[in-house]
């Protein structure tokens, strides 16, 4: 390694009391960050030179399917994996020349968890805090506070292996926050949790961020998670960032709402009529179902109903759908987000049209 990993023991080691980044300064700056792996003699580009910024106080989601390079990126930004290309500044410190500075300023909650099954909740939190240089009493004080905030109170003598999935995940998060970092990385924070625990964890993330003004960078392959939690989303696929924006901006990129009408007969004529609507596009027919996109579905619907009524076409159902992040992902990458689930055939037909 080109740089020394050693550092001096001293008061400097404590959690940074000084603001590590000024208001409005980027908390993360990534330029051309890349990572190659050699796999059975072949070179695999897990991350292909990505660029992005995260401002202080933002909650940014890194959204992509499994294998998109999310965890690799996170491991690079948390100093656990050396990039093979590019540069990054994390929490005001250069990733390559000052990894110790980065480590002091960030919290990291890994994807697969981070607790030793036999260790007790209280001692895990205390040890973690002390590895950040906090005194024993300060470590205990922080531990008790975090346990309170994350619904872990009263569990400090319990071995980690006896915790429920949700409790264990909250313990992972407590371990990542024990030194009050200005920036925290959460890798797939709710994967494997039941819906109730997920919603509960989202609440915790939102609240801790609101109370402490932390910058949060999380990865997820759940659209609803990115939608519900994030100020801004970086959509990633095959090691590149394919789009970024707020959830609403991304949804606006999918041109318009979807109107789905089912008719009892003459679907072709219904489709022709629909085609006449201002801004109508991507009109498709599947059996008795006509699907189209218009910029403003709620405004276009009365007009469509009038036209069809005038032509005497009987409708059996009408539906207007706002675009979802799923649509966004599909239109950006041509595939569904959850790579283990096949895209619904109707949607595929729409995009084939």
């Amino acid at each position, binding site marked *: *390694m080109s740089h020394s*990993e*050693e*550092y001096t*023991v001293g008061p400097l*080691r404590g959690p940074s009391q000084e603001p590590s980044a000024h208001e409005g300064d980027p908390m993360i700056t990534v330029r051309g960050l890349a990572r190659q792996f050699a796999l059975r003699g072949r070179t695999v580009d897990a991350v292909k030179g990505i660029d992005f910024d995260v401002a202080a106080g933002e909650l940014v989601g890194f959204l992509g399917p499994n294998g998109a390079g999310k965890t690799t990126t996170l491991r690079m930004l*948390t*100093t*656990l*994996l*050396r990039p093979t290309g590019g540069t990054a500044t994390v929490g005001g410190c250069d990733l390559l020349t000052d*990894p*110790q500075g980065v*480590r*002091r300023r*960030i919290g*990291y909650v*890994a994807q*697969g*968890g*981070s*607790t*030793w*099954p*036999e*260790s007790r909740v209280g*001692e895990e939190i205390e*040890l*973690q805090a*002390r*590895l*950040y*240089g906090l005194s024993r009493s300060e470590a205990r004080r922080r531990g008790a506070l975090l346990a309170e905030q994350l619904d872990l109170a009263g569990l400090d003598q319990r071995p980690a292996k006896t915790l429920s999935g949700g409790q264990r995940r909250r313990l992972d998060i407590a*371990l990542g926050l024990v030194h009050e970092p200005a920036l925290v990385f959460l890798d797939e924070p709710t994967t494997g949790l039941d819906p109730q625990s997920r919603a509960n964890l989202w609440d915790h993330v939102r609240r801790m961020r609101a109370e402490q003004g932390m910058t949060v960078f999380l990865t997820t392959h759940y659209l609803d998670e990115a939608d519900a939690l994030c100020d801004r989303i970086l959509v990633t696929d095959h090691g590149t960032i394919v789009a970024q924006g707020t959830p609403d901006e991304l949804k606006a990129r999918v041109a318009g709402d979807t109107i789905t009408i089912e008719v009892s007969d003459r679907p072709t004529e219904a489709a022709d009529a629909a085609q006449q609507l201002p801004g109508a596009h991507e009109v498709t027919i599947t059996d008795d179902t006509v699907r189209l996109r218009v910029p403003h579905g709620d405004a276009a619907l009365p007009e469509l109903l009038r036209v069809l009524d005038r032509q005497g076409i009987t409708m059996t159902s009408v539906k207007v759908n706002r675009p979802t992040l799923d649509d966004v992902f599909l239109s950006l990458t041509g595939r569904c987000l959850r790579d283990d689930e096949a895209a619904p055939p109707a949607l595929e037909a729409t995009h084939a049209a």
Partner: protein
Amino acid sequence: MLHDTGLIFTRDMKLSLRNPTWLLIGIMQPLLYLFLFGPLMVTVVRNTPGFPSDDAWTVLTPALIVQTALFSGSFAGVGLLTEYRVGVVDRFRGTPASRSALLFGKVLAQAAQATAQSALIVVVTLLVFDLNAPVSGMLLSLLIAAVLAITLSSGSYALALILKSEAAFPSLMNMVLLPLLLLSGVLLPVTRELAPAWLYNLARINPLTHIVDAERAAFRGDLQATGLLTGCLILLLMTVLALVWGTRTFQKENA
């Protein structure tokens, strides 16, 4: 770095003391050797010339100490790989704690455990069998066992982090350890009188042989023996190499 070494050492010791089966499992094998093999050894040593001492227990006990330190040290990497799998290693590596301290804390805990096991073996041999060894020699032998455990666990941790396979690592260890153990004369000393020349020469190349020789010299109270000095020097050289290797591996960012 001392601070972090202490934290990791305390963590590992706390966990092993909470579940002391490691101590019992670790000394099960040497105890079996003492009870089921020791009595045979007494007769063999008495009737066969060529042993470094005519007291079987001063030949067998130090060898069992080396064997115990060898096994517990070499397999230390298995525990590290489990910690790696559940994410503990990455969690520690994500903190500003010194990478060397993460290694040293674990290595010292291994040394403490090996010393405790060795001490138990000595106590049992003293109480149950007719062991006759000077206290200074026995203490020196415990020190050698501790340093040997430091050496082997450091190397074991480095190798485990490089292989990163919970399946391959123990198989590799078993493959390496048996020939190393047989060639070090743990059960029967590979002396010039007892072994054919080629086997004797092969054993001399094995660094472990010299450490077993040093342990036996300490148990005989023969502190002037050249074997003791040679063994200690070889051990210290190995320790330095193993710690450098371990530290380097722990400092690699993708280790």
